[in-house]
């Protein structure tokens, strides 16, 4: 149909990376973590507990295939044969459907462990906002889970809610954060409890003449507030780290930190790989203890 808008506003760039300073041939133990989430999948390859390579992709309709694609993409530039892998752990929503995994571990444990690695041992509270859920995790100095709270029943406060808004407002999801600050004055937030109602409200605001950026700002602060109510319930202990795709959205994170009254920890790593990093580290620990794969 002419003029039909087929752009997919939720789409983000898939990526992979290889550490140029590591030769896998020198490694004693190679472990892999594969995180098959509801929206994105990652594979992380670790050599003796060091991050060697990773991939970050969109999850397809089939979990085993998504796990396979993520691993292939992660290994693409390494020339490392798969047989070199000593242990592989699956995690995430699709963790039981990772065919190459030796075992699976819940994403809660993996995210805490992964955040501990990518942000440092000072992290005590981890917020993970994924595609279809939101978790607040308290952990100790070893990255072990002490307590957690999770919302996986309601789209408000998850990446899915943001996708709905990106679509509604025809704004690529990666631009949402920036654009939400391009407003003269911070608008009042829309409904934070239900994405369906927030959408109705947003449509009304657009008809009233609100700018798209203002509506984005109103939704970002609604989402920030919704997430805040979850972490408030578990209690926030310093230092505070954020993982998952939403960590890349300034619009929500900066508004959230204002409510919390803390500075978030910073990292140069891709925040989406935390779960897979944690899984690969658990694998490394198992192999070191001699509990690895039977050869």
């Amino acid at each position: 149909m002419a003029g039909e808008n087929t752009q997919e506003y939720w789409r983000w760039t898939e990526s992979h990376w290889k550490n140029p300073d590591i030769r896998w041939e020198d490694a004693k133990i190679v472990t892999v973590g594969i995180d098959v989430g509801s929206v994105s999948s990652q594979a992380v390859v670790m050599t003796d507990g060091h991050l060697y390579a990773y991939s970050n992709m969109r999850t397809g309709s089939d979990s085993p295939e998504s796990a396979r694609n993520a691993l292939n993409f992660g290994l693409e530039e390494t020339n490392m044969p798969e047989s070199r892998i000593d242990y592989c752990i699956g995690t995430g929503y699709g963790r039981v459907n990772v065919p190459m995994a030796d075992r699976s571990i819940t994403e809660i444990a993996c995210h805490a462990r992964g955040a501990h690695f990518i942000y440092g041992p000072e992290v005590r509270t981890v917020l993970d906002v994924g595609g279809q859920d939101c978790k607040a995790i308290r952990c100790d100095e070893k990255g072990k889970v002490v307590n957690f709270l999770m919302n996986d029943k309601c789209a408000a406060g998850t990446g899915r809610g943001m996708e709905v808004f990106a679509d509604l407002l025809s704004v690529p999801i990666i631009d949402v954060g920036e654009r939400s600050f391009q407003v003269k004055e911070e608008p009042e937030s829309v409904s934070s409890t239900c994405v369906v109602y927030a959408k109705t409200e947003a449509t009304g605001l657009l008809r009233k003449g609100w700018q798209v950026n203002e509506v984005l700002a109103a939704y970002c602060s609604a989402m920030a507030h919704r997430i805040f109510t979850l972490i408030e319930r578990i209690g926030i202990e310093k230092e505070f780290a954020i993982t998952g795709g939403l960590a890349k959205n300034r619009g929500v994170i900066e508004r959230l930190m204002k409510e919390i009254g803390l500075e978030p920890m910073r990292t140069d790593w891709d925040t989406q790989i935390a779960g897979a990093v944690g899984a690969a580290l658990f694998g490394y620990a198992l192999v070191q203890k001699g509990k690895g794969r039977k050869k």
Partner: protein
Amino acid sequence: MIIVGIDCGAKNTKTVVLRDNKIIGKGMILTGFDQTSAIRESLHAALKDAGIDVKDVDKISGTGAGMEEIRDADVRVNEVKAMAKAANFFVPSARTVTDVGAEMGRAVKIDENGKVIDFAINEKCAAGAGAFIEAMARALEAKLEEMGPMVLKSDKSIPMNAQCAIFAESEVVGLIHAKTAKADISKAIHDAMASRIVSMIRRIGVNKDIVMIGGVGLNPGFVDSLKRELEIDKVYIPPDPAFGAAVGAALVLAEET
């Protein structure tokens, strides 16, 4: 004495005209984004339907999510109080009344005089309101008015995992891809929503007789699912259930006058 009840809801604004506690006129207009004009137009429609002039109206009572916008209202009646009164008016033996509208669901326990004993409300989540069925109709590419009748054609029960309307949309798309019949999907949708309304009713207790008001009462599929979830044979639905709260608001004012 002529009393008007206006219920400015999230989706529709409903007006009834009562002459000595008898309904003589009704008007319903989409609320849209301009509540003030919807209120004016629905009042106009109801007066025209009753064949009377605005000068003949003694008093106006307002209720609903947009009741603050009803400028001419002499009183504003809380929705819970209004629905209790309405249930008692239509079915004097009513002890439980549920009101399921576009963006809210409520359940009220009442006594033999239509007085409120206890209540439960959901107006925060679309999964327990008419908006859920609307969103699912879009995912199913069906007209909203087709959704209910479809339920009656299905004898399968497929459980839905998702609670949230946004997540349920993806689940419905998955069911379509799995070549599930539309009627069976529609039944799954209605059953899921009815179970949420029923768990709200159970919080205040299931006491006979049960009356349902609100626009969703016009959906035969939902009523069917509701009865099944409640494990009872009869749910009383007044004619034009969407006007329930408007009638109740008018009756509360009539009683006070």
